Protein backbone atom coordinates (compact mmCIF):
# COMPACT_ATOMS: atom_id res chain seq x y z
CA UNK A 1 0.00 0.00 0.00
CA UNK A 2 1.31 3.45 -0.88
CA UNK A 3 1.84 6.05 1.84
CA UNK A 4 -0.90 8.21 0.32
CA UNK A 5 -3.40 5.33 0.43
CA UNK A 6 -2.42 4.55 4.00
CA UNK A 7 -2.93 8.16 5.03
CA UNK A 8 -6.31 8.33 3.28
CA UNK A 9 -7.38 5.16 5.11
CA UNK A 10 -6.20 6.61 8.40
CA UNK A 11 -8.20 9.78 7.77
CA UNK A 12 -11.24 7.56 7.16
CA UNK A 13 -10.75 5.82 10.50
CA UNK A 14 -10.48 9.11 12.36
CA UNK A 15 -13.55 10.65 10.76
CA UNK A 16 -15.60 7.45 10.99
CA UNK A 17 -15.95 7.16 7.22
CA UNK A 18 -14.55 3.64 7.45
CA UNK A 19 -14.02 1.33 10.42
CA UNK A 20 -10.47 0.73 11.60
CA UNK A 21 -9.31 -2.87 11.13
CA UNK A 22 -9.65 -5.10 14.19
CA UNK A 23 -5.98 -5.96 13.81
CA UNK A 24 -5.08 -2.41 14.84
CA UNK A 25 -6.54 -1.86 18.32
CA UNK A 26 -4.32 1.20 18.74
CA UNK A 27 -6.43 2.98 16.11
CA UNK A 28 -9.04 3.67 18.79
CA UNK A 29 -6.45 5.69 20.74
CA UNK A 30 -5.90 7.94 17.74
CA UNK A 31 -9.68 8.23 17.24
CA UNK A 32 -10.12 9.23 20.87
CA UNK A 33 -7.27 11.73 20.68
CA UNK A 34 -8.70 13.25 17.51
CA UNK A 35 -12.19 13.71 18.95
CA UNK A 36 -10.97 14.79 22.38
CA UNK A 37 -8.71 17.43 20.84
CA UNK A 38 -11.52 18.92 18.75
CA UNK A 39 -14.01 18.77 21.62
CA UNK A 40 -11.50 20.53 23.87
CA UNK A 41 -10.98 23.19 21.20
CA UNK A 42 -14.71 23.85 20.87
CA UNK A 43 -15.23 23.78 24.65
CA UNK A 44 -12.44 26.28 25.13
CA UNK A 45 -13.54 28.66 22.37
CA UNK A 46 -17.26 28.45 23.13
CA UNK A 47 -17.11 28.45 26.89
CA UNK A 48 -20.31 30.47 27.41
CA UNK A 49 -22.24 28.37 24.92
CA UNK A 50 -21.15 25.29 26.88
CA UNK A 51 -22.39 26.84 30.12
CA UNK A 52 -25.65 27.97 28.49
CA UNK A 53 -26.46 24.61 26.89
CA UNK A 54 -25.01 22.39 29.61
CA UNK A 55 -22.26 19.84 29.10
CA UNK A 56 -24.36 17.01 27.67
CA UNK A 57 -26.11 19.14 25.05
CA UNK A 58 -22.84 20.85 24.15
CA UNK A 59 -21.10 17.51 23.63
CA UNK A 60 -23.87 16.40 21.28
CA UNK A 61 -23.60 19.64 19.31
CA UNK A 62 -19.81 19.39 19.21
CA UNK A 63 -19.97 15.77 18.05
CA UNK A 64 -22.33 16.82 15.25
CA UNK A 65 -19.92 19.57 14.22
CA UNK A 66 -16.88 17.30 14.40
CA UNK A 67 -18.65 14.77 12.18
CA UNK A 68 -19.81 17.43 9.69
CA UNK A 69 -16.68 19.53 9.52
CA UNK A 70 -13.34 17.75 9.81
CA UNK A 71 -10.61 20.30 10.54
CA UNK A 72 -8.65 21.72 7.65
CA UNK A 73 -6.42 24.45 9.10
CA UNK A 74 -2.99 23.93 10.65
CA UNK A 75 -4.17 25.81 13.71
CA UNK A 76 -7.07 24.86 15.95
CA UNK A 77 -7.78 28.59 16.31
CA UNK A 78 -9.78 28.42 13.08
CA UNK A 79 -11.64 25.19 13.82
CA UNK A 80 -14.62 26.81 15.50
CA UNK A 81 -15.38 29.13 12.57
CA UNK A 82 -18.39 27.12 11.41
CA UNK A 83 -19.73 26.14 14.83
CA UNK A 84 -22.29 28.99 15.07
CA UNK A 85 -23.83 27.72 11.81
CA UNK A 86 -23.90 24.16 13.16
CA UNK A 87 -25.67 25.46 16.26
CA UNK A 88 -28.19 27.33 14.11
CA UNK A 89 -29.05 24.07 12.38
CA UNK A 90 -29.39 22.23 15.69
CA UNK A 91 -31.27 25.01 17.52
CA UNK A 92 -33.32 26.76 14.80
CA UNK A 93 -35.83 27.99 17.39
CA UNK A 94 -33.24 29.26 19.86
CA UNK A 95 -31.39 32.01 17.99
CA UNK A 96 -29.59 33.15 21.14
CA UNK A 97 -27.42 30.01 20.98
CA UNK A 98 -25.80 30.90 17.66
CA UNK A 99 -25.49 34.55 18.69
CA UNK A 100 -23.74 33.54 21.92
CA UNK A 101 -21.46 31.35 19.83
CA UNK A 102 -20.67 34.21 17.47
CA UNK A 103 -19.78 36.40 20.43
CA UNK A 104 -17.53 33.74 21.98
CA UNK A 105 -15.80 33.24 18.64
CA UNK A 106 -15.39 36.95 17.87
CA UNK A 107 -13.87 37.59 21.30
CA UNK A 108 -11.45 34.69 20.85
CA UNK A 109 -10.40 35.99 17.44
CA UNK A 110 -9.97 39.52 18.71
CA UNK A 111 -7.70 38.19 21.46
CA UNK A 112 -5.11 37.06 18.91
CA UNK A 113 -5.75 39.71 16.27
CA UNK A 114 -3.03 41.95 14.89
CA UNK A 115 -1.62 44.66 17.15
CA UNK A 116 -2.51 48.16 15.93
CA UNK A 117 -2.34 51.09 18.33
CA UNK A 118 -5.51 53.20 18.43
CA UNK A 119 -5.48 56.61 16.83
CA UNK A 120 -4.89 59.44 19.25
CA UNK A 121 -7.73 62.02 19.24
CA UNK A 122 -5.03 64.70 18.95
CA UNK A 123 -4.16 63.58 15.42
CA UNK A 124 -7.72 64.21 14.28
CA UNK A 125 -7.07 67.96 14.39
CA UNK A 126 -5.14 67.66 11.14
CA UNK A 127 -7.67 65.50 9.36
CA UNK A 128 -9.41 66.87 6.27
CA UNK A 129 -12.92 65.56 6.96
CA UNK A 130 -14.03 66.26 3.40
CA UNK A 131 -11.95 63.36 2.17
CA UNK A 132 -11.05 61.32 5.26
CA UNK A 133 -11.48 57.56 5.38
CA UNK A 134 -11.34 55.84 8.76
CA UNK A 135 -9.52 52.57 9.30
CA UNK A 136 -10.77 50.30 12.05
CA UNK A 137 -8.75 47.96 14.24
CA UNK A 138 -8.14 44.58 12.59
CA UNK A 139 -9.67 43.05 15.71
CA UNK A 140 -13.06 44.69 15.07
CA UNK A 141 -16.01 42.46 14.20
CA UNK A 142 -19.68 43.36 14.00
CA UNK A 143 -22.97 41.62 13.32
CA UNK A 144 -26.65 42.27 13.78
CA UNK A 145 -28.33 40.43 16.63
CA UNK A 146 -31.96 39.78 17.48
CA UNK A 147 -31.71 38.29 20.98
CA UNK A 148 -30.40 39.21 24.42
CA UNK A 149 -27.33 37.00 23.88
CA UNK A 150 -24.95 39.74 25.18
CA UNK A 151 -26.85 39.91 28.48
CA UNK A 152 -26.74 36.13 28.75
CA UNK A 153 -23.01 36.14 28.00
CA UNK A 154 -22.32 38.81 30.63
CA UNK A 155 -24.34 37.07 33.33
CA UNK A 156 -22.68 33.71 32.69
CA UNK A 157 -19.23 35.33 32.74
CA UNK A 158 -20.00 37.04 36.03
CA UNK A 159 -21.20 33.80 37.55
CA UNK A 160 -24.74 35.16 37.84
CA UNK A 161 -27.94 33.42 36.85
CA UNK A 162 -28.45 34.31 33.17
CA UNK A 163 -31.72 35.90 32.08
CA UNK A 164 -34.18 33.88 30.04
CA UNK A 165 -33.53 34.16 26.33
CA UNK A 166 -35.74 36.66 24.54
CA UNK A 167 -35.97 38.54 21.29
CA UNK A 168 -35.00 42.22 21.29
CA UNK A 169 -37.73 44.71 20.36
CA UNK A 170 -35.42 45.98 17.60
CA UNK A 171 -32.39 44.40 16.03
CA UNK A 172 -29.10 45.77 17.37
CA UNK A 173 -25.48 45.56 16.32
CA UNK A 174 -22.95 43.67 18.37
CA UNK A 175 -19.46 45.17 18.23
CA UNK A 176 -16.36 43.22 19.27
CA UNK A 177 -12.79 44.50 19.39
CA UNK A 178 -9.64 44.38 21.51
CA UNK A 179 -8.47 47.19 23.73
CA UNK A 180 -4.82 46.70 24.68
CA UNK A 181 -4.82 42.95 25.41
CA UNK A 182 -8.44 42.59 26.47
CA UNK A 183 -11.24 41.57 24.13
CA UNK A 184 -14.35 43.74 24.60
CA UNK A 185 -17.87 43.96 23.25
CA UNK A 186 -20.88 46.20 23.38
CA UNK A 187 -24.14 46.61 21.54
CA UNK A 188 -24.94 49.60 19.41
CA UNK A 189 -28.09 51.08 17.96
CA UNK A 190 -29.15 51.05 14.34
CA UNK A 191 -27.59 54.46 13.63
CA UNK A 192 -24.14 53.44 14.76
CA UNK A 193 -24.55 50.07 13.08
CA UNK A 194 -25.16 51.86 9.80
CA UNK A 195 -22.12 54.07 10.29
CA UNK A 196 -19.93 51.09 11.19
CA UNK A 197 -20.93 49.16 8.12
CA UNK A 198 -20.39 52.19 5.86
CA UNK A 199 -16.86 52.76 7.21
CA UNK A 200 -16.09 49.06 6.81
CA UNK A 201 -17.33 49.33 3.22
CA UNK A 202 -14.84 52.15 2.61
CA UNK A 203 -17.19 55.13 2.63
CA UNK A 204 -15.82 58.55 3.57
CA UNK A 205 -16.86 59.79 6.99
CA UNK A 206 -18.26 63.02 5.49
CA UNK A 207 -20.61 60.94 3.31
CA UNK A 208 -21.80 59.11 6.40
CA UNK A 209 -22.34 62.47 8.12
CA UNK A 210 -24.36 63.66 5.13
CA UNK A 211 -26.56 60.57 5.37
CA UNK A 212 -27.21 61.28 9.04
CA UNK A 213 -27.97 64.95 8.31
CA UNK A 214 -30.37 63.94 5.53
CA UNK A 215 -32.22 61.70 7.93
CA UNK A 216 -32.16 63.67 11.19
CA UNK A 217 -31.54 67.24 10.10
CA UNK A 218 -28.39 69.32 10.40
CA UNK A 219 -28.27 69.74 14.17
CA UNK A 220 -29.22 66.20 15.22
CA UNK A 221 -27.40 64.54 12.32
CA UNK A 222 -24.10 66.25 13.08
CA UNK A 223 -24.57 65.64 16.80
CA UNK A 224 -25.12 61.92 16.15
CA UNK A 225 -22.05 61.75 13.89
CA UNK A 226 -19.96 63.49 16.53
CA UNK A 227 -21.20 61.17 19.27
CA UNK A 228 -20.43 58.09 17.17
CA UNK A 229 -16.93 59.32 16.32
CA UNK A 230 -16.29 60.16 19.98
CA UNK A 231 -17.38 56.69 21.05
CA UNK A 232 -15.11 55.05 18.47
CA UNK A 233 -12.16 57.09 19.68
CA UNK A 234 -12.96 56.26 23.28
CA UNK A 235 -13.14 52.55 22.47
CA UNK A 236 -9.91 52.73 20.51
CA UNK A 237 -11.31 51.08 17.40
CA UNK A 238 -9.99 53.68 14.94
CA UNK A 239 -6.36 52.97 14.12
CA UNK A 240 -5.71 55.25 11.14
CA UNK A 241 -7.15 57.79 8.77
CA UNK A 242 -6.52 57.92 5.05
CA UNK A 243 -7.47 60.16 2.17
Amino acid sequence: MSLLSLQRDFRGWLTDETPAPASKPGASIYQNNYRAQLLACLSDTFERVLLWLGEDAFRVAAATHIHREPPTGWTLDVYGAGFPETLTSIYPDDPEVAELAWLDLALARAFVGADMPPLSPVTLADVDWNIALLEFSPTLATRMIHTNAPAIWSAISAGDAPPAACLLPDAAALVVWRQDFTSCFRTSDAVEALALSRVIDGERFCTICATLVDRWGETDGIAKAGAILGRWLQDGIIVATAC
Partner: protein
Amino acid sequence: MMSSGFSGFGLGLRKPHYQDFLDGDVAVDFVEIISENYMIDGGRPRDILRRIRERHPVAMHGVSMSIGSADGVDRDYLQRLRALVDEIDPLFVSDHLCWTRIEGFNSHDLLPLPYTQEALDVVRTNIGVAQDVLGRAILIENPSSYITFDDVDMSEWAFLDATCAETGCGLLLDVNNIFVSATNHGFDPHAYIDGIPADRVRQIHLAGHSQGETMLIDTHDSPVPASVWSLYERAIARTGPVATMIERDDAIPPLSDMLDELNIARTIARASALRVAA
Protein backbone atom coordinates in the same frame (compact mmCIF):
# COMPACT_ATOMS: atom_id res chain seq x y z
CA MET B 1 22.36 27.04 10.96
CA MET B 2 21.70 24.45 13.67
CA SER B 3 22.65 25.55 17.15
CA SER B 4 25.06 23.11 18.69
CA GLY B 5 26.86 22.77 21.96
CA PHE B 6 23.97 24.12 24.02
CA SER B 7 23.43 21.81 26.96
CA GLY B 8 21.16 23.70 29.34
CA PHE B 9 18.03 22.59 31.17
CA GLY B 10 14.62 24.00 30.38
CA LEU B 11 10.87 23.76 30.76
CA GLY B 12 7.94 24.02 28.42
CA LEU B 13 6.37 27.48 28.67
CA ARG B 14 2.74 26.96 29.72
CA LYS B 15 0.00 29.45 30.63
CA PRO B 16 -0.13 28.65 34.38
CA HIS B 17 3.54 29.66 34.63
CA TYR B 18 3.43 32.83 32.49
CA GLN B 19 3.37 35.13 35.49
CA ASP B 20 6.26 33.31 37.21
CA PHE B 21 8.40 33.83 34.14
CA LEU B 22 7.36 37.48 33.82
CA ASP B 23 7.86 38.24 37.52
CA GLY B 24 11.41 37.15 38.08
CA ASP B 25 14.41 35.04 37.33
CA VAL B 26 13.36 31.45 36.89
CA ALA B 27 16.17 28.94 37.20
CA VAL B 28 16.04 27.55 33.69
CA ASP B 29 18.56 27.82 30.88
CA PHE B 30 15.85 27.99 28.23
CA VAL B 31 12.13 27.65 27.68
CA GLU B 32 10.41 25.71 24.95
CA ILE B 33 7.23 26.98 23.30
CA ILE B 34 4.64 25.21 21.18
CA SER B 35 5.28 27.19 18.00
CA GLU B 36 1.68 27.17 16.76
CA ASN B 37 0.44 28.85 19.95
CA TYR B 38 2.41 31.94 18.98
CA MET B 39 1.99 31.86 15.19
CA ILE B 40 -0.80 34.39 15.61
CA ASP B 41 -1.17 37.96 14.47
CA GLY B 42 -0.80 39.64 17.86
CA GLY B 43 -2.30 40.03 21.31
CA ARG B 44 -1.22 39.01 24.77
CA PRO B 45 0.44 35.64 23.93
CA ARG B 46 2.85 37.29 21.48
CA ASP B 47 3.59 40.07 23.95
CA ILE B 48 4.33 37.58 26.72
CA LEU B 49 6.61 35.61 24.43
CA ARG B 50 8.53 38.76 23.47
CA ARG B 51 9.01 39.68 27.13
CA ILE B 52 10.10 36.18 28.16
CA ARG B 53 12.46 36.04 25.17
CA GLU B 54 14.24 39.07 26.62
CA ARG B 55 15.10 36.93 29.66
CA HIS B 56 15.54 33.41 28.29
CA PRO B 57 16.67 31.60 25.15
CA VAL B 58 13.68 29.94 23.49
CA ALA B 59 13.34 26.63 21.65
CA MET B 60 10.44 26.38 19.19
CA HIS B 61 8.65 23.04 19.10
CA GLY B 62 5.90 22.52 16.55
CA VAL B 63 3.09 20.04 16.03
CA SER B 64 1.74 20.90 12.58
CA MET B 65 4.65 20.70 10.13
CA SER B 66 3.54 17.23 9.04
CA ILE B 67 6.82 16.15 7.51
CA GLY B 68 5.35 12.72 6.81
CA SER B 69 2.53 13.92 4.56
CA ALA B 70 2.54 12.07 1.25
CA ASP B 71 1.22 15.20 -0.46
CA GLY B 72 3.99 17.46 0.81
CA VAL B 73 4.36 20.19 3.38
CA ASP B 74 2.24 23.32 3.67
CA ARG B 75 4.38 26.22 2.45
CA ASP B 76 2.06 28.84 3.93
CA TYR B 77 2.51 27.20 7.32
CA LEU B 78 6.27 27.18 6.84
CA GLN B 79 6.34 30.86 5.86
CA ARG B 80 4.39 31.73 8.98
CA LEU B 81 6.75 29.62 11.08
CA ARG B 82 9.69 31.38 9.42
CA ALA B 83 8.30 34.76 10.47
CA LEU B 84 8.23 33.64 14.11
CA VAL B 85 11.70 32.13 13.81
CA ASP B 86 13.02 35.43 12.49
CA GLU B 87 11.47 37.29 15.40
CA ILE B 88 12.45 34.89 18.19
CA ASP B 89 15.84 33.68 16.96
CA PRO B 90 15.31 30.33 18.69
CA LEU B 91 17.87 27.84 19.90
CA PHE B 92 16.13 25.06 17.97
CA VAL B 93 13.17 24.57 15.67
CA SER B 94 11.68 21.12 15.99
CA ASP B 95 8.70 19.02 14.99
CA HIS B 96 7.79 15.35 14.96
CA LEU B 97 8.46 12.31 12.85
CA CYS B 98 4.80 11.91 11.97
CA TRP B 99 2.08 13.21 9.72
CA THR B 100 -0.89 15.36 10.74
CA ARG B 101 -2.36 16.49 7.43
CA ILE B 102 -3.41 14.89 4.17
CA GLU B 103 -5.25 16.45 1.23
CA GLY B 104 -6.58 19.38 3.23
CA PHE B 105 -7.60 17.35 6.25
CA ASN B 106 -5.72 18.23 9.44
CA SER B 107 -5.98 15.74 12.29
CA HIS B 108 -4.22 17.85 14.92
CA ASP B 109 -2.74 14.61 16.19
CA LEU B 110 0.70 13.12 15.66
CA LEU B 111 -0.08 10.17 13.40
CA PRO B 112 2.39 7.33 12.83
CA LEU B 113 4.39 6.61 9.72
CA PRO B 114 5.26 3.21 8.30
CA TYR B 115 9.05 2.97 8.28
CA THR B 116 9.37 2.18 4.59
CA GLN B 117 11.73 3.43 1.92
CA GLU B 118 8.81 5.34 0.36
CA ALA B 119 8.07 7.12 3.65
CA LEU B 120 11.77 7.91 4.03
CA ASP B 121 11.77 9.49 0.57
CA VAL B 122 8.71 11.59 1.49
CA VAL B 123 10.21 12.68 4.81
CA ARG B 124 13.53 13.52 3.18
CA THR B 125 11.84 15.69 0.55
CA ASN B 126 9.58 17.42 3.08
CA ILE B 127 12.39 18.15 5.53
CA GLY B 128 14.40 19.54 2.63
CA VAL B 129 11.59 21.95 1.75
CA ALA B 130 11.12 22.93 5.41
CA GLN B 131 14.80 23.58 5.95
CA ASP B 132 14.97 25.64 2.75
CA VAL B 133 12.03 27.82 3.79
CA LEU B 134 13.23 28.16 7.38
CA GLY B 135 16.83 28.76 6.38
CA ARG B 136 18.14 26.41 9.04
CA ALA B 137 18.39 22.78 10.04
CA ILE B 138 15.50 21.49 12.11
CA LEU B 139 15.25 18.84 14.80
CA ILE B 140 12.96 15.86 14.40
CA GLU B 141 11.40 14.19 17.44
CA ASN B 142 10.54 10.52 17.73
CA PRO B 143 6.80 10.20 18.53
CA SER B 144 4.88 7.89 20.82
CA SER B 145 2.87 5.42 18.77
CA TYR B 146 -0.01 3.05 19.25
CA ILE B 147 0.06 1.29 15.89
CA THR B 148 2.67 -0.55 13.89
CA PHE B 149 2.50 -1.35 10.22
CA ASP B 150 3.22 -4.50 8.27
CA ASP B 151 5.88 -4.63 5.58
CA VAL B 152 8.16 -1.98 7.01
CA ASP B 153 11.74 -1.78 5.82
CA MET B 154 13.46 -0.61 8.99
CA SER B 155 13.13 0.17 12.68
CA GLU B 156 12.18 3.65 13.87
CA TRP B 157 15.72 4.35 15.04
CA ALA B 158 17.16 3.23 11.69
CA PHE B 159 14.62 5.51 9.99
CA LEU B 160 15.77 8.42 12.15
CA ASP B 161 19.39 7.60 11.43
CA ALA B 162 18.73 7.66 7.69
CA THR B 163 16.66 10.83 7.96
CA CYS B 164 19.46 12.67 9.74
CA ALA B 165 22.07 11.38 7.33
CA GLU B 166 20.10 12.33 4.23
CA THR B 167 18.77 15.74 5.33
CA GLY B 168 21.30 17.11 7.77
CA CYS B 169 18.57 17.55 10.38
CA GLY B 170 19.17 16.90 14.06
CA LEU B 171 17.29 14.82 16.60
CA LEU B 172 15.08 15.78 19.46
CA LEU B 173 15.11 12.57 21.43
CA ASP B 174 11.97 12.09 23.50
CA VAL B 175 12.92 9.49 26.06
CA ASN B 176 9.37 9.10 27.35
CA ASN B 177 8.16 8.42 23.81
CA ILE B 178 10.77 5.69 23.45
CA PHE B 179 9.51 4.06 26.64
CA VAL B 180 5.85 4.37 25.63
CA SER B 181 6.36 2.97 22.12
CA ALA B 182 8.72 0.24 23.34
CA THR B 183 6.15 -0.90 25.89
CA ASN B 184 3.28 -0.72 23.42
CA HIS B 185 5.06 -2.55 20.62
CA GLY B 186 7.36 -4.83 22.56
CA PHE B 187 10.78 -3.65 21.45
CA ASP B 188 13.81 -3.05 23.65
CA PRO B 189 14.15 0.65 24.54
CA HIS B 190 17.85 0.15 25.17
CA ALA B 191 18.33 -1.10 21.63
CA TYR B 192 16.55 2.06 20.44
CA ILE B 193 18.84 4.36 22.42
CA ASP B 194 21.89 2.39 21.35
CA GLY B 195 20.72 2.60 17.72
CA ILE B 196 20.10 6.31 17.32
CA PRO B 197 22.82 8.54 15.85
CA ALA B 198 23.87 10.04 19.18
CA ASP B 199 25.96 12.75 17.55
CA ARG B 200 22.81 14.16 15.93
CA VAL B 201 20.89 14.61 19.20
CA ARG B 202 20.60 18.30 20.08
CA GLN B 203 17.79 18.16 22.61
CA ILE B 204 16.08 15.65 24.90
CA HIS B 205 12.46 15.65 26.05
CA LEU B 206 11.32 14.11 29.31
CA ALA B 207 7.71 13.61 30.37
CA GLY B 208 5.28 11.31 32.10
CA HIS B 209 2.68 8.97 30.63
CA SER B 210 -0.46 7.11 31.66
CA GLN B 211 -1.62 3.51 31.52
CA GLY B 212 -4.51 3.25 29.05
CA GLU B 213 -6.83 0.30 28.65
CA THR B 214 -4.34 -1.72 26.67
CA MET B 215 -1.40 0.58 26.03
CA LEU B 216 0.65 3.35 27.56
CA ILE B 217 -0.54 6.79 26.48
CA ASP B 218 1.76 9.80 26.08
CA THR B 219 -0.30 12.14 28.25
CA HIS B 220 2.29 14.52 29.73
CA ASP B 221 0.12 14.76 32.82
CA SER B 222 2.36 13.35 35.53
CA PRO B 223 5.94 13.58 36.77
CA VAL B 224 8.71 11.82 34.88
CA PRO B 225 8.60 8.21 36.14
CA ALA B 226 11.59 6.16 37.28
CA SER B 227 11.51 4.09 34.09
CA VAL B 228 12.03 7.23 32.00
CA TRP B 229 14.74 8.64 34.28
CA SER B 230 16.56 5.36 33.87
CA LEU B 231 16.41 5.63 30.09
CA TYR B 232 17.50 9.27 30.29
CA GLU B 233 20.60 8.16 32.14
CA ARG B 234 21.41 5.77 29.31
CA ALA B 235 20.60 8.36 26.63
CA ILE B 236 22.67 11.17 28.13
CA ALA B 237 25.59 8.77 28.52
CA ARG B 238 25.47 8.22 24.76
CA THR B 239 24.83 11.77 23.64
CA GLY B 240 26.95 13.65 26.14
CA PRO B 241 25.65 17.00 27.39
CA VAL B 242 22.67 18.21 25.33
CA ALA B 243 19.73 20.51 26.03
CA THR B 244 17.19 18.73 28.21
CA MET B 245 13.67 19.82 29.04
CA ILE B 246 10.56 18.53 30.77
CA GLU B 247 7.16 18.67 29.07
CA ARG B 248 3.98 18.96 31.08
CA ASP B 249 0.69 19.65 29.31
CA ASP B 250 -1.98 18.55 31.73
CA ALA B 251 -2.39 18.60 35.53
CA ILE B 252 0.33 21.24 35.48
CA PRO B 253 1.82 21.70 38.96
CA PRO B 254 3.33 24.87 40.46
CA LEU B 255 6.53 25.99 38.78
CA SER B 256 8.56 25.10 41.87
CA ASP B 257 7.59 21.43 41.42
CA MET B 258 8.71 21.53 37.80
CA LEU B 259 12.01 23.11 38.80
CA ASP B 260 12.56 20.41 41.42
CA GLU B 261 11.97 17.81 38.73
CA LEU B 262 14.37 19.58 36.40
CA ASN B 263 17.02 19.37 39.09
CA ILE B 264 16.79 15.58 38.91
CA ALA B 265 17.73 15.83 35.23
CA ARG B 266 20.63 18.11 36.13
CA THR B 267 21.86 15.64 38.74
CA ILE B 268 21.67 12.68 36.34
CA ALA B 269 23.42 14.60 33.56
CA ARG B 270 26.14 15.83 35.94
CA ALA B 271 26.78 12.31 37.23
CA SER B 272 26.99 11.04 33.67
CA ALA B 273 29.49 13.73 32.74
CA LEU B 274 31.59 12.89 35.80
CA ARG B 275 31.61 9.20 34.85
CA VAL B 276 32.80 10.10 31.37
CA ALA B 277 35.47 12.40 32.79
CA ALA B 278 36.66 9.67 35.13
